[in-house]
């Protein structure tokens, strides 16, 4: 029942520990969710490694011309409050502000949210829109993988037994970007999203022609995903109502939601359409409002 607690003080120490314990050691960043997972037997832990003491992982760093990096210990609360994130990646800030309860935002980290690999992870859709990459570290070295390749299924990721998620890198995106994250829950933020949708619109020069459109969906498939066919309909187009309608229809076809106590499959599909119809114009308006080229 009990477990051994490892409290490394540096990343190097943590990686050594992870090397020797491997799969056996569960990594905790914020430490929310953990006891519930144990209780529900979704997780077994003999050894637990807390990253809390590793100061070098607690940061949000912006490098002009490159992008923004979130350390593994950056909490939802810190990301939602960060000026740079709010300014350049409002969709990520909105998503982090909608994660669970305020107490969970205080302690829970974006990195932990991704590693749990819940289909409903709020931070995932915006990061999918941004083509974020994840730096996975081990005693063997580091590797960088795209967030698109990170999730393998509910609670399953590509993390190896000796690896730790070290950083999340959000690359600078050229052109003018507008984005929004909308979540529909039965009881607002307490509810795990019935459906969560992120939409980003990129403009390059023209206010009329969309140079890129990205749509990401949460809670409607085994992993968060991009609705690439829906995106295709709007890319390099002048946005018209019929196109939004079509993109919404196609995006819904890319999802495979389930029915449960919270909502039926049909309702979730309906809501993907409804939220797309809302989010696309909102993202477009926000992109048009972004007068500075290359801001994000």
């Amino acid at each position, binding site marked *: 029942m009990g477990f051994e*607690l490892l409290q490394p003080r540096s990343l190097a120490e943590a990686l050594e520990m992870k090397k020797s314990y491997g799969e056996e050691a569960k990594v905790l960043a914020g430490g929310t969710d953990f006891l519930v997972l144990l209780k529900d037997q979704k997780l077994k832990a003999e050894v637990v490694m807390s990253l809390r003491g590793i100061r070098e992982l607690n940061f949000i760093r912006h490098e002009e011309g490159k992008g923004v990096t979130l350390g593994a210990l950056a909490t939802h609360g810190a990301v939602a409050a960060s000026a740079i994130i709010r300014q350049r990646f409002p969709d990520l800030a909105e998503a982090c502000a909608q994660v669970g309860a305020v107490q969970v935002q205080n302690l829970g980290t974006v990195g932990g949210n991704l590693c749990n690999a819940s289909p409903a992870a709020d931070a995932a859709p915006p990061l999918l829109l941004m083509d974020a990459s994840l730096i996975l570290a081990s005693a063997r070295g580091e590797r960088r993988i795209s967030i698109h390749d990170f999730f393998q299924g509910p609670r399953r990721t590509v993390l190896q037994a000796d690896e730790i998620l070290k950083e999340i890198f959000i690359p600078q995106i050229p052109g003018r970007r507008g984005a929004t994250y909308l979540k529909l829950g039965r009881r607002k933020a307490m509810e795990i999203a019935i459906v969560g949708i992120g939409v980003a619109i990129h403009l390059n020069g023209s206010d009329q022609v969309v140079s890129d459109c990205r749509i990401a969906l949460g809670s409607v498939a085994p992993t968060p995903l991009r609705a690439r066919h829906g995106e295709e309909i709007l890319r390099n187009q002048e946005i018209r109502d019929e196109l939004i309608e079509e993109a919404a229809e196609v995006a819904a076809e890319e999802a495979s939601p389930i029915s449960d106590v919270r*909502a039926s499959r049909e309702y979730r599909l309906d809501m993907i359409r409804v939220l797309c119809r809302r989010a696309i114009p909102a993202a477009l308006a926000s992109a048009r409002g972004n007068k500075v080229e290359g801001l994000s």
Partner: protein
Amino acid sequence: MEKKSRIRLTINGKELELEAEPNRSLLEVLRDDLGLTGTKQGCDREECGTCTVLLEGVSALSCNLAVGMVVGRKVETIEGLGQGGGLHPLQKAFVEKGAVQCGFCTPGIILETEALLRRDPAPTSEKITERLFPHLCRCTGYAKILEAIEYGARLRRGEPAVVTASHQGYVGRPRSALDAEDKVTGRAKFAADLYMPDMAYAKILRSPHAHAIIRNIDTSEAERIPGVRGFVTGRNLRAVRLGVKPLLRPGRGTFQPVIAIDRVRYKGEPVAAVAADTREIAEQALAAVKVDYEVLESVIGVEAALKPDAPRIFPEGNVEQTQTITRGDIAKGFAEADVVVENWYYTPFQEHGYIEPEAGLAYVDTDGRLFLQACTQFPYQCQQSLAQLLGLKAEEVRVVATPVGGGFGGKYVEHAWILAALLAYEVRSPVKVVYTREESILSSTKRHAALMRFKTGASRNGRLVALEAELFMDVGAYFDPLVTRYTAVAAQGPYEIPNVLVKAAQVATNVQKSGAFRGLGGIQIAFAQEQQLELIAQQLQMDPWEIRYLNALRPGSVTATGHHLEEGVGISATLKAVRPYYEQALQVARAENGSRETASTWKRGVGLACGWRAYGGQSTDPTEATVELLPDGTLEVRSGLVELGVGSTTALAQMAADLMGVRLEDVHLIGGDTARAPFPYTTSGEKAVMMIGGAVCRALEELRAALTSVSAQALGCRPEEITFKGGNALQAGRKLPLDRLAALCREVGVPLKYQGAARWSGYRPLDPDTGQGVFCDLYAMRTQVAEVDVNTTTGEVKVLRVVDASDTGTVVNPILLEGQIHGSIVQGLGYALTEEFVPGQTATLREYGLPTVLEMPEMVVLFVGDKVPSTPFGAKGAGETAIVPTPAAIANAIAHATRARLRRLPAKPDRVLAALRES
């Protein structure tokens, strides 16, 4: 074996080092190891907020935080607030503003607010709401909490307190609840907060099947596990106590065994209970019990149970017609009707959702007496059941009600503490039980789901002429016909209808038992009947308000049961009271819908609904209480009243203080203790003020008479000249303090202790076939207006405002009654929009969907109605029935906004959307 670590942390400013397994939750360590029980356990899965503590000054949920993760960090709990210098400003504000009802969620909310105010001393109300929403409160409806937070923030910034002028007398004045201070400081001991040396923990093994025969239960292997102290199963209970009916709930239906004997009838039914040294050993022991089941076909849902070929739960069938009410000539009534509307309606199971899970602690005391402390609304029935189960005399069992962390009808005689007490008697050591949230949801009673057919006829001028109703009440796995009487009586609504035929049946299904819940029977009826009225009004092109006012019961009306109503018939007064609000809301809605673009997805609607219900406790049995003038001149009142957090004890003290002319703090209430206040009473059905209050008033009249004559003699005056005020007997400027008067009485041999009784004097049991009789002397009545916004693309419904007017007569304590009404309205709102217990599926609070502060509407509470001549101070209970019309008013408002008629609750977005597409 557990791996313990030395853990260093700072708690409330003190550095501590303790030995603990690092995976234990901070909550458990705070409560079990450090005795800091002000931090409460509500769900253990980050869903209710009640375990909130401050970690380095920010709020954190201690239930899900491994203590290993807080090593070296600073933790603050409720016990750390206001240390030394009395109450913290927030605590003071919560007490004064009536923000504390059951008090179970209070410490967590106060800490959350404190964390906010440290960063932002003057937060906007949006900010406060945002911080508050993860905290579930089932009692207050959040309104008074928000008020308290804003006031507390002002106090905390050093702004002066608002001092209200002191008044003569207490009845009719807002007073803080007497127990509020204990609750805001975390000092109040709820049942789960009790610990004893050598205490064992009880855990219950539950059936994984909805319906099965138990072929064998083998506990032998489990009994060999070190640390296991003993088991109770249906087998050893029956063998050891032969001839004792192991009943849990009495009724004319089927007795439910306290633990399954040879058959289980619902998933979650207790099969074995164990007492062991620790919770973990108890869990291990349960895992080692072998139960051999023969699984049977089960039936879930009324519709399924009504089918002729449905599997039978009892040999006599699943359906029992238990109450019919007939009046007039139903065929003639419909023949005369110009409009007839007929529909089916369905309302689901509702979970009580109290934030305190079921808990109790029992032991056998040195006199061999079984002593149980538990969060029960009905300690007297617990005593009786235990005595019967164990073959003891009633006085050999003592049951004391602890503060109840929300009851609402759900905490009567529950398996949790009855089994703990049986185990304590068996193993002869203290045994404590605390349900997990999942257990509580799985096994506790629920509001009866109901399937109802209503056929209503009216004449061209809007007069109701006929009602035929068929009511099928889902009672769960064991018959209990009580609810069918409440629903049958309520079926006509608070309206005159000359021709009535109501048939109410109880239907058994393979789910947990249904039971009492606020507004028992009335809420389902209002959902159906109030929509029927609306549909009739539509067909006749009548105003919804007019049709209700035209048909409303009045003094002199005769109900379908033949009850001639004389007093306390205030339904028209409540309709009149809401009328200006209703008309204004309609105007606003028209303007809103007009000004919004036609493409807008939000539509505004306004709905009206009335509600009524008989008060609880039908019988002519008296409710008793005693009063005694103590030697120090203070007053002791003993009754069966249990404080559920709704303020009844405060109201009772206010009445007693006024009658005896003493200060509120000089009234000592003793209640809910079978040994010290042996007056059987169930605290339910909003009758406390009328029944307990009545008994206390009678007893006080006798005490006053005795004191009057002794003081008149002492002061040498006529008895008529004596009055009681300020703790004295007064006569023309002369005064005799009550302590001296008490001494005088003893000298002359005049008793100082008196007993009083109150009863429903008009009660005549209903004839089961005709329904004629008097179900209750009085009925609670009210009207509500709901204003909603409906999103026509997502089906979301926002309730913006609810106006409630209740027929209360005298209001003993406006602030506490208002708070109770807020709570009832928000419970009704939850039932209308989000709450649904789906057997076999709903397992957690999150899945269930209790309303949060974000769902809270603006609430306007109006008290109307004349004093009732026959009740103490002319007061009527009015708190719990505020739930009755709310779902109906919301459903009518949704229909007004969109034409979508909801005939099935809850109005979840997908159902609203489906109804919209049909309309």
